[in-house]
């Protein structure tokens, strides 16, 4: 028995057959992707295009339940087949979109899809989605989905000077009032004393400087 034993199938590196490049599908295509190719062969192109449109809608976060039912009815597809088609196409596209366009070469991409057994005309449709003009829009959606913390959507400010208060007859202290609105819908209002304001301004400038330096470092190290 080979010393590699049960791990042997997983150690076959697809890059061996693709000139040193790892498949966008990973070391082995996931079960749903492997299962979808034979079913695709039985679909006509227009149905496949409708399916793709649905999957893209899902990637955009739309509710596709009704559309799925309509597709199943119009194309006369059983629930089971439809489920396999949706899962496989969704995973396939998701994995393709994970790669930056620069590292997804069209010939390699198409070769990998051919190896799965996907029909040529459907390969063309998939390629135009993953590498065509729609790609930047899909990337923008994906970027948004990647953050979990809220972002700032609106920032308003006001400078007040307290002339006199119940505690001090002569005050003349400026204070900054800020209102932040966030992408999660919440709003926060708070006062910033002048000393704290200076600290805030300094910190923001420092963070920006750090970000610029990090970006330079990332560009140098993480190139494909």
């Amino acid at each position, binding site marked *: 028995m080979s010393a590699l034993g049960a791990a042997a199938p997983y150690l076959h590196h697809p890059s061996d057959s693709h000139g040193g490049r790892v498949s966008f599908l990973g070391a082995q295509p996931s079960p749903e992707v492997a299962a979808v190719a034979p079913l695709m062969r039985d679909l006509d192109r227009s149905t496949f295009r409708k399916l793709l449109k649905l999957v893209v809608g899902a990637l955009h976060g739309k509710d596709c339940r009704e559309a799925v039912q309509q597709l199943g009815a119009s194309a006369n597809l059983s629930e089971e087949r439809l489920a396999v088609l949706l899962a496989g196409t969704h995973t396939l596209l*998701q994995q393709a*979109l*994970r*790669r*930056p366009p620069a*590292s997804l070469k069209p010939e390699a991409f198409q070769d990998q899809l051919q190896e799965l057994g996907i029909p040529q005309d459907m390969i063309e449709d998939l390629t135009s989605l993953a590498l065509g003009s729609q790609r930047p829009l899909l*990337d923008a959606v994906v*970027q948004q*989905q*990647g*953050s979990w*913390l*809220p*972002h*700032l959507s609106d*920032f308003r*400010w006001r*400078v007040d*000077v*307290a002339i006199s*208060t*119940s*505690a*001090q*007859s*002569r*005050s*003349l*202290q*400026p204070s*900054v*009032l*800020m209102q*932040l609105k*966030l992408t999660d819908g919440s709003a*926060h*209002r*708070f*006062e*910033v*004393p002048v000393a*704290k*304001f200076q*600290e*805030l*301004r300094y*910190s*923001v*400038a420092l*963070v*920006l400087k*750090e*970000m*610029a330096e990090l*970006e330079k*470092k*990332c*560009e140098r190290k*993480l190139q*494909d």
Partner: protein
Amino acid sequence: MAGELEGCKPLSGLLSGLAQNAFHGNSSITEELLHSQLYPEVPPEEFRPFLAKMRGILKSIASADMDFNQLEAFLTAQTKKQGGITGEQAAVISKFWKSHKTRIRESLLNQSRWDNGLRGLSWRVDGKSQSRHAAQIHTPAAIVELEFGKSGQESEFLCLEFDEVKLKQVLKRLSEVEESIGTLMQAA
């Protein structure tokens, strides 16, 4: 007995105690405590008006947020008054105000702050490299934690994420605020 009150050593302690009670909200510093600790030999009926006088002087100084010229003028007037203060007492009060002014002013300002105030800010810059949806993201992201709180209450924390573009916009706004403050303070 008047001589006891004129002695200056305990006066500094008395002023500290008064400030704690009147400005910093420390209600455990009572009249009885100050009396027993600082002027135990003085009968209560003499101590009480003396305390009231000192309290009144300190409050006037704090309320007007006197600068040092105003302070000197005010204290000199107090020494000339009937039933006022002595020269040595004026000197102690002057020294006290000079060293405690900033803290007292801050406490008084806080008494007029009812909204959430920014207490602190922490930050971190992450280099986003991968996510479930994208294999390579070269963009740095800043995570900022803001600490707020109302006077006397516990802090709340808010965590936000910024990209470079957004943070630049924020910095621009902060510069506008800075300009506005500068203009206002020049005019004042």
